[in-house]
């Protein structure tokens, strides 16, 4: 188990490192001179200002030197400064990050609970109207775009019924955006759980479990659900990454004060240092979550734990 975790941790570090390279190259990949693009929006920038920016970003040196300068700064916690306003990037992002994490993880919990429950019963009631109703609902869940669902929820529960605030902070305000964000993912997790459970129900070890005369709930929860969740958990990492991305749109709709709003603004204003910082923080979060899910995955399936050893 320990060596498994160490291995995974190593892979995680490697992933983050590769991301820093990609991010550092971002300014190079943009067609045209990055400095000119950066200053295109701000009228009246002087030649001196542009040269100073070029020197600060190290764009006057070669790619390798540029990268190490960037990496060195990163390691010291210096993610650069925004073009507009010249604020340090990292504190700006970190200030908003908790809100986004809150939203995405609440949505993941909702999506997992709803999706697994839905998928499990759809599989258990295979061939009955229950399955048809549940599966139809997942098709809807997948096809309805979050921005539309968000607006409808806002209108119905926020404005007409007045159950939840239409914007703001705190638990109460979290409900609608989290549900919006969770809907699609609940449907995806539901379909995944269903097919995984259907496969498990057909397994020979399930026949063995039934042959022991145990109560139905024991057979289903201990034998079926645990084995069936293994592939679902491994998919949740990807789901979470999608949710972090999806959060951008949802935050915008609900005026949720998270990274998403900041990122959209940064992209619209072509504030490269901020975009770079955003991508990097985003990927670190996704890597951390995958690491966490790997641990859960290993706890569920002993064969994974010993993967490299036996």
């Amino acid at each position, binding site marked *: 188990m320990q*060596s498994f975790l160490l*291995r995974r941790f190593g892979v995680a570090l490697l992933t983050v490192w590769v991301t820093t390279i990609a991010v550092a190259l971002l300014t190079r990949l943009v067609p045209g001179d990055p400095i000119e693009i950066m200053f295109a929006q701000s009228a009246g920038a002087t030649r001196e200002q542009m040269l100073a920016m070029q020197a600060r970003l190290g764009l006057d040196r070669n790619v390798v030197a540029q990268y190490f300068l960037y990496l060195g700064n990163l390691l010291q916690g210096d993610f650069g400064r925004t073009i507009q306003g010249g604020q340090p990037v990292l504190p700006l992002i970190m200030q908003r990050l908790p809100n986004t994490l809150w939203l995405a993880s609440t949505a993941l919990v909702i999506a997992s609970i709803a999706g697994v429950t839905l998928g499990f019963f759809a599989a258990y009631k295979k061939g009955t109207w229950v399955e048809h109703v549940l599966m139809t609902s997942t098709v809807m869940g997948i096809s309805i775009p979050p921005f539309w669902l968000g607006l409808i929820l806002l209108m119905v529960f926020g404005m007409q019924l007045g159950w939840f605030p239409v914007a703001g902070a705190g638990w109460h305000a979290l409900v609608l955006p989290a549900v919006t964000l969770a809907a699609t993912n609940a449907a995806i997790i539901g379909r995944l759980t269903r097919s995984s459970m259907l496969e498990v129900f057909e*397994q*020979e*070890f399930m*026949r*063995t*479990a*039934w*042959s*022991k*005369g*145990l*109560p*139905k709930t*024991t057979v289903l929860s*201990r*034998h079926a659900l*645990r*084995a069936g969740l*293994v592939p679902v958990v491994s998919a949740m990492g990807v789901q979470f990454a999608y949710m972090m991305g999806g959060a951008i749109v949802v935050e915008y709709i609900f005026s949720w004060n998270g990274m998403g709003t900041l990122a959209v603004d940064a992209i619209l204003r072509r504030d490269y240092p901020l975009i770079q910082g955003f991508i990097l923080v985003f990927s670190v979060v996704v890597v951390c979550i995958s690491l966490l899910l790997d641990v859960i995955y290993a706890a*569920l*399936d*002993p*064969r994974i734990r*010993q993967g*490299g*050893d*036996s």
Partner: protein
Amino acid sequence: MKHQFSTSGIKAPMISCSGLHIGFPTEHTANNVVRDLSFTIDRKEIVSIVGESGSGKSLTSLALLGLLPQQARASADCLRFHDRDLLGQSYRDWQGIRGKRISMIFQEPMTSLNPVLTIGRQMVEALEWHEGLNRKDATRKVLDILDQVRIPAASKRIKQYPHELSGGMRQRVMIAQALTCGPELLIADEPTTALDVTVQSQILGLLEQLRADLDMGILLITHDMGVVAETADKVVVMNAGDHVETGTVEQIFAHPENAYTKRLLASVPRLGSGVVPNSARPETSPQKDAPLLEVEHLQVRFDQRAGWGRKARRRVHAVEDVSFRLGRGETLALVGESGSGKSTLARAILSLIKPDGGTVRLKGRDITGLNARLMLKHRRVAQMIFQDPYATLDPRMRVGDQVAEPIVLHGLARGKAVARRVQELFELVGLDPAWARRHPHEFSGGQRQRICIARALAVEPELIIADEAVSALDVTVQAVILDLLKDIQQKTGISYLFITHDLAVVEQISHRVAVMYLGRLVELGSTQSVLRSPSHRYTRSLLQAVPVADPTRRPQRVQDTSDIPSPIHDADWQPPAWPMRQLQPDHWVAEGDPLHEVVGS
């Protein structure tokens, strides 16, 4: 050893079944796959239901536990366990029987145990539920039972997961699990089919002994007449859903009445007896000069690494210093149990795996280390047939096209000539050429294997390596395929390297036998001389373990629980020299068993 009836007059049997029908009904028909089956089982009795695939024997066993697939419907004049009607019981009713009074063990111990729960967790749950024991008491009882089925270091085993145990150990765990609540009836569905013969012998011995110790009835479902002859008291023969014949094991084997039973018994390969249906191979005589295939000091090892770029800590010595020759028109059988390295050897010969040492010469030319383009030419000379014909045929391609593919690929024919060649091949393997337009799922297992043989023959090879090519087939089909292979050898002078675990098959098809054990050849010689006078300890134990299809010759089993030692060693381990000694002009045997001593001590 017949059971004794109690003296308290006539007692109702434990299981009485009469007029059992099981079907998968559609709107219009009942689709019965088991028809009018009747039998009884008493305590201490081993009743065997025997039949080939599709005979309905497994469904019958599932009906006794109410575990039939959802779409299946069962009806019977009488299906009773003591005085309880087993048809139409509720889930609650079944809970009082399943796992407590009737329990079941299944064919494949790997897939029949839950991979994500420890052995201990899976074993205590029935005790906790049925007998209300707490975890501690249940665990103590489980340890007792594991001891009874002779699992060494049981307290360590219960913390392990199924994948950490060997096949034999897993099947012992299955049996122990079924015994936890002291059932009156144990249903064993092909309990030894997935196991090697030496392990099979251990497991069968165990079942017999438990029957005596625990006063338990056993329903043994099997396709193997050898297993039946060695263990059963009473035999029920089924064929394609029909109940064919019932009798004591002596009656069935000595005086079978039904034509199907006779045919089934006739096609059972009987090792070493004079009544082999197609007696040992005099028809073709291989040419001794200029061997087709020469293997010298071949070596394949696999490193086991803990991670990328790490040094190997352990090494699998899959094939170690193997040398042999195969003449033209000759069949050499490569025998060994799972993990002995026989399949790895075959793949190394065809350069599907890169050998770590030694040479392979095909038609006098060293083919180890040839590049892909040159290898292609040699692939034409040597072809392979695999165990599972369904898995090796493309399900979406017409079988005729699949046979034609290698012909076109190797440029052996063009246009109309290809179709003509396919037609010839179909005729050669005994298939109607008109079937070339069909897809694999439209054929039976035996027919599919014929297609695979036709495909292998398409490029006019001089050597066919058959890896367990008949192991998955029913005995009656198996006998026919073996005849076909011999027939083709007579017509074309082709050579076979025949990999199998089944010694009875060896006797029918091969001129010479090579016995493989832990990656080494331990005995090599003519079929006659190896099977009649086996010289190596391992060959002897292998031969002793083969079930004999004759109830009058039941073996005295020696209870041996040892697993075969592992071919995995530390990376710095040097394999001991293990020279072979010549006994007769054509019979070689390895000196002693250094590996056994090394590991066994």
